Structures are given as C-alpha cells and as structure tokens.
C-alpha cells in the first residue's frame, strides 16, 4: 500500500524552523474575519475549534502515521472536564478551565496510547473506535454527572480576564479562540520541527529501520499521542466554553469521522492542511445546509469524492502543485 502521506511534502516544509511568508496568510485571513464578516463569528468559532482539533489529529496522523477513528474521545474528555469543572465545582475561570481540559485529555491519551499504540492498521482503527465508544458509554452511565444524552446544563463561564464575556455575537470568544489556536499552533510547529518530530516521520516512513537504529518507537509514539491528546482536550474545552453545553455527541463516532475527513481533505502532514480542511468542511456544510436543509449531505459527499478522485494530496496539495508550477515558470 502506498504511504498515506507524500514523504517529501512534510519534512522540508515545516522541518525548517524558519518561517515562510505564506504562513502569514491563514492567520491574516482568520484575523480579518471579525472585520469582514462580523455576522458570522459563531460559525467562525466552529471553524477555530475544528482547526485546533484537526491540528491535534494531524500531529499523530500526518506526522506519526497513527490512524485513529476515536479521536473524539479525547476532544470529549476535554469538553466534559471543562464543562463539569464549571457546572459542578463552580470553577468558572476560562483559561485555567482550558488547561484542566487539556490535562484531563492528556491523561486519557497517555493511558490509552500506552496500551493501543502497540497496534497498527485495522486493529488500531477498531481499537480506537471501540475505546471511544466505551468512553461515551461511560459518560452515558454517569449521566447524573455528565448530563448524558440530554446534555450538561449549568456551565457558566466567567468573562475572560473578568472583562470579555461570551456575547451574543461571539466577538470575544472568536478572539479568545484565535489566541488559543495560535498558542497551540506554535507548540505544534515547534514539535514537528524538532529532532523528536523528525524521528516521528522516520517511524511513519519505516518503523523497522527506526527499531533497528535503536529509537524508542513506542515511547515516542505515546509522547506525541499525549501531546496531541492535550491539544484535542483544549479544543473540546473551548467547545464546551463557547456553547456552555456538552452532550454525548462530543465523544461520538460522527465527530471522530469528521475530524479525520477534515485532515485528509486539507492534506495530512502539513499542519496548515488542518486550516484549509476545517474551513472548507465547516463552511461548506453550513452553507449547503442553508441551501437545502434536507439534502446538503449530497453536496458534502460529492466534494469529498471529487477531492479524492481529482486532487491527490488534499486541497493543500493542489495549492502546492500550483505554486510549484508557477515557480518553474518564473525563474
């Protein structure tokens, strides 16, 4: 089977710690949204949460080659941690709430990763999927604490720094989310550019060779899995704080599938693929659902199928091909 990710694509592009000017573009675009589309910030918040979540999946899928269908378990752990912290313990400070969400998810990621990352392929896929469903089942059994199917009520997050509340237009939370995303991205970028990140790519490309040179493969996989879990947990915590509501769906198969779609759609192993994939997927779904509340899934499906058939390395792959062609033409 062909490798999931074009090996040449990932390493040189973000392997360098040096920044490319083009990397400013997605950030400028995200920063411009409140000025250009002030009425769409609720959707903007959805996009930001999805980017953050997809970024965490890209760390393990795109860089370490771990394929999972249960990533929502970590997102959900973060969402419940942040939500229950406020709803039951009355701890309503948002930033520490996010940190707790990240820590809780990291703990779950570390433990589950320790056991599961000895496996790969279909077995790993099904193990992550089944583990996520079991966690969801646990959250359902703990309905008196989690709110179960109906959802966790009573989340009342304080204004950020005591000043910026969750307003009806979501302006403050959009900015808050964007800053959280930037912080997470800087960490992710640092991780993949480090020797540790390079060794992950080595594991992805040829695990036997990494074993042969004596690299601690399992330990490194668990390490990146834990980092990614923390990031997914922060995304979940952000989700819980934005909506002040958490249901069992945050751990659902559907969400695990969606984030996988987003990463593949954008292009795995590139970090910025998460931005493009999340933006396109969330906005596409939103706009098509407005156009046809009954049949929007057809349009989304069509885009996915067409992307696979006509764009080999996700949407970011198209962009790279185009710039490469342009560069060849202009010496």
């Amino acid at each position, binding site marked *: *089977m*062909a*490798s*999931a*990710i074009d090996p040449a694509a990932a390493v040189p592009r973000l392997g360098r710690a040096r920044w490319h000017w083009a990397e400013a573009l997605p950030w400028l675009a995200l920063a411009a949204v409140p000025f250009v589309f002030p009425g769409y910030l609720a959707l903007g918040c959805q996009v930001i949460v999805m980017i953050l979540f997809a970024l965490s999946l890209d760390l393990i*899928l795109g860089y370490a080659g771990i*394929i999972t269908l249960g990533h929502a378990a970590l997102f959900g752990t973060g969402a419940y941690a942040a939500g229950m912290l406020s709803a039951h313990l009355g701890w309503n400070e948002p930033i520490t709430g996010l940190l707790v969400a990240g820590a809780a998810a990291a703990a779950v990621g570390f433990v589950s990763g320790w*056991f599961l990352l000895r*496996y790969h*392929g*279909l*077995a*790993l*896929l*099904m*193990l992550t*999927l*089944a*583990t996520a*469903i*079991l966690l969801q*089942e646990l959250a359902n*059994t703990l309905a008196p604490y989690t709110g179960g199917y109906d959802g966790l009520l009573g989340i009342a997050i304080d204004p950020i720094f005591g000043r910026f509340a969750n307003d009806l237009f979501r302006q403050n939370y959009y900015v808050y989310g964007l800053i959280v995303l930037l912080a997470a991205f800087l960490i992710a970028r640092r991780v993949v550019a480090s020797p540790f990140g390079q060794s992950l790519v080595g594991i992805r490309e040829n695990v036997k060779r990494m074993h042969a040179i004596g690299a601690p493969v399992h330990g490194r996989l668990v390490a990146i899995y834990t980092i990614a879990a923390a990031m997914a947990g922060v995304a979940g915590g952000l989700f819980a704080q934005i909506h002040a509501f958490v249901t069992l769906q945050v751990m659902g*198969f559907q969400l695990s*599938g969606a984030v*996988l*779609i987003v990463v*593949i*759609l954008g292009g*795995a192993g590139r970090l910025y693929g998460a931005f493009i994939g999340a933006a396109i997927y969330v906005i596409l779904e939103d706009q098509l659902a407005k156009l046809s509340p*009954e*049949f*929007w*899934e*057809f349009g*989304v*499906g*069509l*885009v*996915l*199928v067409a*992307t*696979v*058939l006509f764009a*080999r390395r996700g949407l970011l792959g198209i962009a790279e091909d185009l710039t490469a062609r342009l560069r060849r033409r202009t010496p």
Partner: protein
Amino acid sequence: MLSAAVSILFDGLAYAMILFIIAVGLSITMGLMNFVNLAHGVFAMAGGYATVTMIRAWEVPFLAALPIAFVLVGAASVVFERLLYAPLYRRSELDQVLMTIGFVFMAIAAFTYFWGPNPLGIEVPRYLKGQVDLGFREFPTYRLFMIAVGFGMILALWLVFERTLLGARIRAAVDNRRMAQSLGIDVGRLFTLTFAVGSGLAAVGGGLAVELIGLRPTFAIQYLVHFLIVVAVGGLGSIRGAFLAALLLGIIDTAGKYVWPAGGGFFIYAITVVALLIKPEGLYGKRD
C-alpha cells in the same frame, strides 16, 4: 434459567446471521485489495430498499425479492466499483476512507430524496410470521428462517471457496496478491467479481434485516461500526473468521442485553477491545 440460555443462544444466532451475511462481503473485499471500504452499508441499504420497493410496488413475493435484490445490487455495484473504487486501488487508505465516506453521504441524501426519510417496513409472508413449536419450546418463525438462510449461505460460500477454481484463485489473491498476479490471475477482474458478490450478499442481508431492524436512509452509516467489528475481529479476508466473529459478537451482545440491560451497548465494544488486544490480526487473519 435453562430456558433463558436457550433463548439467548437462539436470538444471538439469528442476530449473528445478519451480521455475517452483510459483513462477509466486506471482509473478502478488504482482504483482497486492502481497500478500506466504509461504504459497504450502502449496498446493504440498497438491498433493503430494492426488496421493499419490489414487494410494495410490484407485489413480488418476499422469497423472490431477495435473490432479485442480490442480482440488482450486485450488478449496480460493479458500476461504482469501476467508477469510484478502481482509481483508488493503489492510493493510500486515507484517500479510500475519504472517498467512501463521501459516497455514504451522497447515498444517504439520494435515498432520502427518492424514498423519503420515513422508516419503511414490509409485511413478510404469513408462513414466516408467528411462532414455530419445536417440541420443547416455541421460536419465532422469521428468526428460524434467518438462521436457515445464514447457514445455507455459509455452505454455499464454503463450497465456492474451497471446492472451485474461482475460490482457489480468490484465496491465493488474498494470501499473496503479487504472487497470484505473477501466476497470471487477473486480480483486478477477480476483485470486481468479488466486490459484486459481496455487495449482493450485503443486499440480501439488508433485505432480511428490514423485518428485524427496520430501514431508513441512515442505515448505511448506522450499522457500519458493527460490520467493521465483525471484519476486524474475524480477520480480513476470512469467511470462517467472519462467521466465528459474528457468532461471538451476536451471542455475547444478546446475552449482555438479556442479563444486564443497563449495560446495553457496552458488551459488543468491550469484546471487540479484548479480542483485538489479544489477536490484533483477528481470529483467522493473516499476520503481516
């Protein structure tokens, strides 16, 4: 107590048959091509809708509708295989995941468009209704019928697999595709054929399942996890494995629901985790 055990075994067996009939095609095609096909449920659903439509619109007898659904869906699946699947054989599993999920989305919307969102049901023939008295106790007729169909299919599949040249070729290709190719077996055509048969079987499973679990456009995704579990626990490409896994999961799931209803959906996933932790390649899967 004994009576409860008999009920559990019997109901579990019937449930296992549905799982097996639908999942076996998926197992073989995934084993043959290493193709991650998340859209297998679409063909089961198509079989369900074909059965319902034939019975309602043209009053085709139930027992005739099932084989017709097999042929119709099997034939139609070839079109999709050539159009959507074939270009992706040498591509990464991520591309395959993305394409097949997209295909599922499209199918859900398309079936909603043509058949509406309401769940559909069928009136099965009178002779399949009610209970059959087997001397020591009574059993639902339809479930007995399903078990009979299931065992019939296993027998047929086993004969084809173990006793025909075609079966030998498929086994060879599952074991070692490159070697099979160099021996002159056209794996591409073999795959198309297996895909069609697998989809046809799924269609029969879908038709049989309507009476048991109903039918609506989200069928394609709703039971996907269960089919994948059967495939993974059984081992890719193994009929025997798929059968044993279906049996194991069907019976334990039923027993769990009977004995401890509050644990409900918990059992099937717990068994999956345990089974895969012990045997990641599945009960009868090939080691890689």
